[in-house]
């Protein structure tokens, strides 16, 4: 079945965000902890971690994992040992 309008919009958005040089998911995972900690304290994203941020923009699975990580870290100050 062809893509519907919503899926087509997703495709166009992903195409628009595409860069020539993107890292893959394992490379993103390797830097995700550092990126998450900078986000939690509102620090400026270091240049070396900006590629992680760019990957998360285009990868729905890494976005989902990153959001879950942030959720866990936000609760960690009160709940985790």
């Amino acid at each position, binding site marked *: 079945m*062809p893509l*519907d309008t919503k899926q087509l919009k997703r495709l166009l958005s992903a195409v628009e965000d595409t860069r020539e040089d993107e890292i893959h998911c394992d490379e993103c995972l390797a830097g995700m902890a550092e990126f998450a900690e900078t986000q939690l304290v509102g620090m400026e994203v270091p240049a070396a971690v900006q590629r992680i941020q760019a990957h998360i923009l285009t990868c729905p699975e890494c976005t989902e994992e990153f959001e879950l990580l942030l959720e866990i870290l936000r*609760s960690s100050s009160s709940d*985790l040992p």
Partner: protein
Amino acid sequence: MRAPRTNEEWLLDLRSEGAAQTRALEDLRAYLLLALRGSMKRDGPVPENLVEDVVQDALVRALDHLDRFEGRSRFTTWATTIAVRTAMTELRRRRWKDVSLDELVTGDALSPERSIDPLESPENQAAQLEIVRVLRDVLDNQLSERQRTAIVAEMRGLPQEEIARRLGLSRNAVYKLGHDARKKLKRGLEASGLDAAELRAAFS
């Protein structure tokens, strides 16, 4: 209550043998169980033994990859990223296990009837029609079969690791297929004189 370990202490204890390693593993296991228990169940019930299995897998992976921890975050944050990926991979596998890749990607990827918004103005519908024409041309004539499969399945919502499982590839390889497809689609749109502002305006 002992003070939290520093990154160096985590690495030292986990790389040691005997009681120090056992204690560190138990502490990390307890930390990850607490971290994942709530988050894995946020979208519905998940058996407790599944959470425990995921944490066990994550512990093994973390131990196997200790040399990849570069100390640029807290050790527990790094370990949590591994646990989150392990958990999401398993949840996606369960959620999508009955979905056929062939059914998702067979046939036309785009069609004016389904892909264009009938509520849009005639001008925007004409612009959408042109965008669909260009995208179809690239999808049908410029992408390899695997690139087309990866990008269409991804846009239909199938997670990349599930595409990878069905194609016998790694998640990284599927990401590259999708990336190559997006680059060709972007060049196709640019070659047709369609810039980002026009695309956004047509689908505003």
